């Protein structure tokens, strides 16, 4: 009797179910998401990139060259992000799922007007993940989402790959939702994201070549290329500025670690005071930056200590003799100086230009001087530009690649 009842319950459960059942070919898988503000209104313009499954009929081709693209773009508008997401349903025959969307791109207008309203949705939505990447652009997110990335069938995944690579090596700190939120919630309320740009690299190259050759080159018109090399800084939910590429690199040394980055040194041996400068490039194999705050009567001082281990990547035509320990020591010193200069420039930009603590001074102060911090906390924005800092850089050259000295020396003048 009891078993019969159990069976009945099971059957009734089985026959009435299937609320969430959804065939996989009735879904539109979003790969990347672009959010723009419609100028002059509060409305959000959403651009989504949806992977298009290649049916058995259609021919499979790579990267949409000549053939069809393997993704489609859809746009929708709404008062808020979730409303915009829902209203994609108006044009899509398939249910939109966001669980595979790994990248969200913020348009510049939106970022500058404030992102507070969309953040809640990004945190709350079931399908949103805190490991997703966040990007900002200097123009509109729509362009970035619509952009093909060469070699990639699905540009949305291409963006993911670029940012994944940054995690291992790169000049930019990739930002996932979690760190972005956590930094915004942090003591300084300053956060940052990588900045995606569309650059006409081909045009630039052609122009330069044309100057050299002196005539117009007969090259094909190529589309713009997506590059990620700068950093957008957010303060109190608003984008306040951009760090240029050099500052971005030094910014990475400060807030993440110098590891995986590179540094170029304009080398000038002291013996040859005139000329024969050459560029030497180092790859930073390992490194660490520690910021130690120090409060004294004079004020707040930040001791920034940056130790790196580098590999010689390129000696160029400098003609240095790296087999000479003295030269190596000198190289190390000069590199440290170059790093210091770069760091100083970056901190200066943050203090004077952006007036936002994107270098993490506030966190360190809070950690080291919790009591004092409570007093500074409220007027930190005013204090930050005046904070003094000292930079100590230390560079250790580990190896020189597969050869030691450059074999081809530049001709003496």
């Amino acid at each position, binding site marked *: 009797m009891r078993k019969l009842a159990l069976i009945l319950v099971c059957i009734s459960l089985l026959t009435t*179910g299937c609320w969430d059942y959804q065939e996989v070919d009735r879904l539109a898988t979003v790969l990347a998401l672009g959010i723009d503000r419609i100028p002059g209104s509060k409305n959000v313009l959403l651009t989504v990139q949806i992977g298009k499954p290649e049916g058995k009929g259609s021919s499979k081709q790579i990267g949409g060259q000549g053939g069809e693209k393997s993704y489609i773009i859809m746009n929708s508008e709404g008062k808020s992000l979730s409303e915009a997401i829902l209203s994609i349903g108006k044009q899509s025959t398939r249910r939109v799922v966001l669980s595979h969307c790994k990248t969200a791109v913020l348009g510049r207008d939106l970022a500058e007007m404030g992102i507070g309203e969309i953040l809640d949705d990004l945190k709350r939505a079931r399908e949103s993940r805190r490991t997703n990447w966040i990007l900002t652009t200097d123009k509109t997110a729509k362009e970035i989402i619509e952009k093909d990335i060469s070699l990639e069938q699905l540009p949305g995944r291409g963006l993911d790959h670029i940012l994944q690579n940054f995690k291992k090596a790169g000049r930019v700190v990739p930002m996932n939702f*979690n760190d972005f939120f*956590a930094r915004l919630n942090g003591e300084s309320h300053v956060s940052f994201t990588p900045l995606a740009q569309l650059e006409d690299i081909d045009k630039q190259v052609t122009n330069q070549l044309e100057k050299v050759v002196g005539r117009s080159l007969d090259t094909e018109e190529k589309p713009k290329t997506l590059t990620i090399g700068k950093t957008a800084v957010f303060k109190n939910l608003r984008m306040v500025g951009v760090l240029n590429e050099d500052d971005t690199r030094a910014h990475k040394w400060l807030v993440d670690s110098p590891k995986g980055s590179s540094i170029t040194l304009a080398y000038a041996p002291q013996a040859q005071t005139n000329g024969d400068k050459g560029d030497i490039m180092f790859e930073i194999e390992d490194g660490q930056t520690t910021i130690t705050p120090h409060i004294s009567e004079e004020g707040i001082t930040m001791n920034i200590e940056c130790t790196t281990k580098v590999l010689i990547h390129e000696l160029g035509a400098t003609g240095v003799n790296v087999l000479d320990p003295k030269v190596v020591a000198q190289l190390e010193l000069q590199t440290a100086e170059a790093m210091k200069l770069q760091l100083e420039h970056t901190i200066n930009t943050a203090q004077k230009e952006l007036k936002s603590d994107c270098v993490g001074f506030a966190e360190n102060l809070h950690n080291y001087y919790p009591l004092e911090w409570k007093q500074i906390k409220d007027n930190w924005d005013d204090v930050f530009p005046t904070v003094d800092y000292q930079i100590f850089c230390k560079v250790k050259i580990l190896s020189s690649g597969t050869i030691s000295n450059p074999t081809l020396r530049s001709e003496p003048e």
Partner: protein
Amino acid sequence: MPEKGIINTKQFVWMLFIIITTLAAMQIPSMLIMQAGRDAWLSVVSAWFLDVMLALVYAYMGIRFPGENFVQYSITILGKYLGRMVGILFPLFFLLVCSLMLQGLSQVVNTIFLPMTPFNVILVSSFLVSAFIGRKGLEVIARMTEVLGPLFFFSIVTVCCLVLPAVHMERLKPQLDEGIAPFLIGTPLMLTSFGVCIIMAMYIPLCNRPENGFLAKFSAVSMGALVVGLVTALSVGIFGIEDAQYMNSPGLQLAKMINFSNYLERVEMVWLLILVGSGIVASSSLLWAFGQGLAQIVGLKTYQPLIYPGALLSLVFCIGSFPSSLNQTNFFHYTFPIVAAFVETGLELFLFATALVLNKRGAA
């Protein structure tokens, strides 16, 4: 005695561990972070200590009244009528915990697995399965936890290891920023949810070695505290206290952070499955404790017919009192600690003191 099954100490440990952890690992960390901020893990440690102290009392009572659980010895101590009135509070408390637990788990299942499925379907099916298991008796529950418990423990530890790269130590600093008050207030919150393992008093008489009661509880609470402490500390270290305190389930969010070499990601469902499975088994042992306790108070020969009605009653509690997850969170945060503190600590200490004063002992 209604229950004929015998459990061994290993099973005892895993059963306690599962009950503590499924109740605590899901929702407690965020409440704790709300109370204690970055020092939440300290609350876990101090609650662990206090709970071990409390366990001493329970273990002692288990030995002083051999072969009796608290339902029975409250009758022995306080007499036929008062003892029954006091004794019935324990089964009812287990029923309440069962409601809370299954509501929370079903809510998570509804949000993560089946967003379009009616909540009640999930709730009813989880109650059905846990009553099915509960009716099979303590031995079956014990054996199931023996399989699920280690799985659960290692899955949590694995999750914690996999999210370690995402931890930013500076989000955990500075400790004791606001003094010791926050973590002291957090302690009772944690203690009350650890305290659900007063169910140990139901198990001690059925254990093949009742004198190991304290040891079992100690190991279970230590494992539970380790897990909850890890989840709490990692949540702070990863999300920061501002976000972590309002998360419905920080443990789940932690699992969502897993991204191991870009291939192993979005696996939180696997972890969640193990958690929900353990939760259902844990609530079935709560239902069992309800049935067993009630059967002993009334003096029945068998407790099994009471399991399904108990589950139904618990379901009605759920539907009537927690129409939404917000209700449940609110109850869990503000009302449950008071109730739990009364039952877990107040009643037991009262019984303990009365037994000492009246010099009552169990019939050996």
